[in-house]
């Protein structure tokens, strides 16, 4: 497998009123094309920060970041982002929010009708056809998050960067979208980097689980390879001993070695 995203010796400092704050240090991570990687760690450890670095929304204080062999100097259409707080534009309908992205990526090459079709398809994929013409404030938090996912998927990015995309969803919708995501990722050979709080979700979806230590100055504590056959079936996995081993390993890391900081 080819290296697709490379993060080398990256440090991230934030300037604060009390001087520089070291959010991340010594991050080394190489992600292969088509790989599904999740980032897990306690709240505030720097998962979003790392994801934003890969997205190119912030630049590292030191170290190198590459995507497809090229330096990451800013966001690019080959990297689709699902934001932690959905970030829909409140004055546009769900359809228009997604269409904005579709238009930008495919607008030059395709007809208007085709762009509309792509938009409809993306929204259908997350089960929101009925809410196409609603504005974000008229739909639930979970629905907003799904529009955000549709927007990112509609761009057919090579890398999908997702910041807790299913965090706000109920268990049923979440399971459904997890399955959809696995299917899409496999069908399109997309590379996915996803931030999550949910241990089951991490094990179910990932090829590798990247576990971050607690901040400040968080770094990668451990990387777990999840070697479960694909396609994965959530029901079948429940009887799979290896699944429970992986789960236990992540839990052990999170709750034993990186005890939640007293917040």
């Amino acid at each position, binding site marked *: 497998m080819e290296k697709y995203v490379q993060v080398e010796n990256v440090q991230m400092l934030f300037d604060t009123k009390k001087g520089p704050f070291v959010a991340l240090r010594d991050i080394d991570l190489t992600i292969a094309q088509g790989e599904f990687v999740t980032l897990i760690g306690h709240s505030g450890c720097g998962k979003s920060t790392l994801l934003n670095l890969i*997205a190119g*929304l912030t630049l590292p204080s030191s170290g190198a970041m590459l995507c497809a062999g090229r330096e990451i100097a800013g966001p690019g259409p080959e990297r689709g982002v699902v934001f932690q707080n959905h*970030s829909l534009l409140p004055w546009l309908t769900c359809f228009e929010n997604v269409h*904005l992205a579709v238009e*930008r990526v495919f607008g030059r090459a395709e007809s208007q009708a085709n762009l509309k079709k792509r938009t409809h398809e993306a929204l259908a994929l997350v089960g929101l056809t009925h809410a196409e013409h609603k*504005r974000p404030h008229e739909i639930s938090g979970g629905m907003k998050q799904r529009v955000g996912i549709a927007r990112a998927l509609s761009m057919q990015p090579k890398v999908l960067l997702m910041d807790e995309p299913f965090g706000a969803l109920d268990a049923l919708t979440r399971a459904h979208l997890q399955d959809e995501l696995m299917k899409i990722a496999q069908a399109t050979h997309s590379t996915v980097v996803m931030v999550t709080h949910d241990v089951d979700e991490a094990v179910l979806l990932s090829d590798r689980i990247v576990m971050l230590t607690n901040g400040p100055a968080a770094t990668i504590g451990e990387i777990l390879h999840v070697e479960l056959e694909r396609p994965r079936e959530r029901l079948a996995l429940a009887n799979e001993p290896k699944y429970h081993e992986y789960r236990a390993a992540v839990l052990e890391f999170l709750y034993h070695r990186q005890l939640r900081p007293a917040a």
Partner: protein
Amino acid sequence: MNKIFKALLPPLIGLLLFVGVWALVAQSSPQLPGPAKTWASAVQLFSDPFYRKGPNDQGIGWNILASLQRVGIGFGMAAAIGIPLGFMIGRFQFLDAMTAPIISLLRPVSPLAWLPIGLLVFKAANPAAIWVIFISSIWPMIINTAVGVNRIPQDYMNVAKVLNLSEWKIFTKILFPAVLPYMITGIRLSIGVAWLVIVAAEMLTGGVGIGFWVWDEWNNLNVEHIIIAIFVVGIVGLLLEQALVMLAKRFSYE
């Protein structure tokens, strides 16, 4: 029905009280006309609002329209310059720093202090009055627009970056809609200022206009007409304000 009654009752009582106090005060000071006398005079005045008997004797309707026209022109020019300027000041730090001292110096200047400059430059009363409207109503629009641009949530700009939107799309899909509520607040404040200022400016410049009309009636010692003018100015101001509130509601996305 009951609801409408409940909503109307308090303001109605307020108005009645106001008229009552006015009538009482008028009774004890003979120069001040009471409500009944003013009403009679108003009925007569508004029975023929659009007459013309020479340049200085025209119906109240013409006077109101003349003032509104001045406000419209002065305010329109202020919007045409102030809003784009506000966008640029909000977007470019350098421009902000450059214009900040000028704005903070000129903004607090009393509107009428600009009148002599206008008279000097334009050598005529009408453009001078428009100039005063322009200069006093431009500040709220510049400042509110700039603040709106500064307050755009980083999230929206992140969306723009991630989607790699063109400058034009950023402007039409993000900047403009995000700033619109601030802009409309600026416009409302500006219209308010413009309408406040026009009366005073016209008193000084003369011609046709509600401000000049007040001055003229003062010279004629027609106090009823002055009171009517106060109500007219208030009501027109209220209508302008309401029109803009409606405009704001029309463009709000919530």
